[in-house]
């Protein structure tokens, strides 16, 4: 049984259709990377799954429950977490407050969850009271992922987690992603320059011009010369 099923989804902004019927499946415990050129509809797909955009056709199911058209504050309660590509932190709030916001829908004590997140991202524990707006890009990405993990989700959706990061920072981020996955979480990643991401993915698929055009295991996609030339910047 798959965790997330996207079935023939059509979606876009206003009158402009971006996705023309996309299928997708995420299985429990796997990492799936979606690659594709700029403007292919990767972020649109993420936003549609999460309920920020409402699809005009098709269906989305999470753990066999229909979530098509559900608002984000409902989706988040079901165990999906989403880290947008940009503006994924609350800059004028402290690190701790950012993490607390991640668990907004929960009641009660958050200390245990916070300590679990800081085990994954130890740098954060030293900077509790720093306003996130004053932090570096890499640290912000940690805060953003930490915030998403506060809810203890089943599926973590990451939109270009390594974009705009220096190579060594990107490597750290992917190392963390792998660690998160080892704890049993499924992860859906969208990437434009996706070699690092595909390397640790179970599966990958290619999205181009609003349609899914290819799907295979991570290593196979990396080995595929056509895809390498077209979407991974060649060798």
């Amino acid at each position, binding site marked *: 049984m798959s965790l997330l099923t996207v079935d023939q989804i059509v979606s876009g902004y206003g009158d402009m259709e971006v996705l023309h019927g996309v299928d997708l499946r995420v299985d429990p415990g796997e990492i799936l990377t979606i690659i594709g050129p700029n403007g292919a509809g990767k972020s649109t797909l993420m936003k549609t799954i999460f309920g920020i955009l409402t699809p005009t056709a098709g269906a989305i199911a999470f753990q066999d429950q229909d979530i098509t058209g559900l608002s984000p504050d409902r989706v988040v309660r079901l165990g999906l977490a989403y880290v947008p590509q940009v503006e994924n932190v609350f*800059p004028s709030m402290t690190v701790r407050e950012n993490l607390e916001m991640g668990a*907004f829908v929960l009641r009660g004590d958050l200390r245990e969850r916070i300590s679990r997140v800081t085990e994954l991202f130890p740098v954060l524990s030293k900077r509790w009271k720093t306003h996130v707006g004053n932090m570096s890009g890499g640290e912000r990405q940690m805060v953003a992922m930490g915030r998403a993990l506060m809810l203890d989700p089943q599926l973590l959706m990451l939109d270009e987690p390594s974009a705009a990061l220096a190579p060594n920072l990107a490597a750290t981020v992917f190392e963390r992603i792998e660690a998160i996955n080892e704890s049993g979480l499924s992860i859906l990643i969208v990437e434009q320059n996706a070699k690092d991401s595909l390397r640790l993915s179970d599966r990958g698929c290619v999205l181009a011009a609003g349609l899914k055009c290819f799907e295979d295991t991570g290593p196979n996609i990396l080995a595929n010369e056509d895809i390498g030339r077209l979407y991974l910047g060649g060798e």
Partner: protein
Amino acid sequence: MLSRIPQLLFYGLVSGSILALGGIGVSLTYSILRFSNFAHGDMMALGAYLTLALIPVAGTLGIPSAAIGPLSFGPRFIVAAVVGMACTFVIVVALDRLIFRRLRKAGRITLMITTIGIALSMRNALQFFWGPQPQYYTARIQLAIQVPRLAIRVKPDQLFVISVAVLLVALLHLFLRYTKTGKAMRATSDNPSLAQVTGINTERIILWTWVIGASLAALAGVLAGVENKFITPELGWQMLLSIFAAVILGGIGNPYGAILGGVIVGVSEEVSTAFISTGYKPAVAFGILVLMLLIRPTGLLGRRS
């Protein structure tokens, strides 16, 4: 002329407290709903008039009107003011449901034009029921007390205005800093789309914004009535420019900036009367506004956007 300055500074502090309370609402609306509410001044006047209407109602409930200590008003007035604040936010929330909610996707400027329409209708509704002439909360006359060693005269009512403002600003600070809803409001103001992604129900936050903004506006209107000794339907509109100057000076969207800006604008306006005609008080606010737009449009405490 210069000998009057300590006294004017004190007056400025009083009117600055009122501007600050008004400005907080403008700032919150701006940061959460993302438009400038030009009806905010008239919400202040609405609160002032609802309080006026509620004073006799509180009287029929047997709440005593005898003045508290040296103040010019008693428990009856305070109860009327608190209920008046509640009635104001109920009306404002109803307007949000009826009008603003349907225009959330229509764009900021449409919303701002709408607030102008509401402002005008609200002001004239007050004028319709109560007339344009001044109305008085109390007929009691209060004598100012000379403060020893400082060259100022102070009325107990004025100290009351300042203390209420300080108290509410402190409460607001605690609310925004430590409560879950307060944090969610800051988060929504920081990054509305991410707030949605974390599961914050934006509509609920908007509701809270109106409740706080409208209550503080009503309170500001009532306190303006206490300080001026009378209210008119134009009360809020006349203060709107000063309030916006205060909000921009402090940094639009930042409630703490609104407080700082309110005090600065209030003091500048009062002190200016030592040098220029009182008729130009609002023009002083306008001067500050233009100066700020030229030098630092993000305001004193504003973030770069």
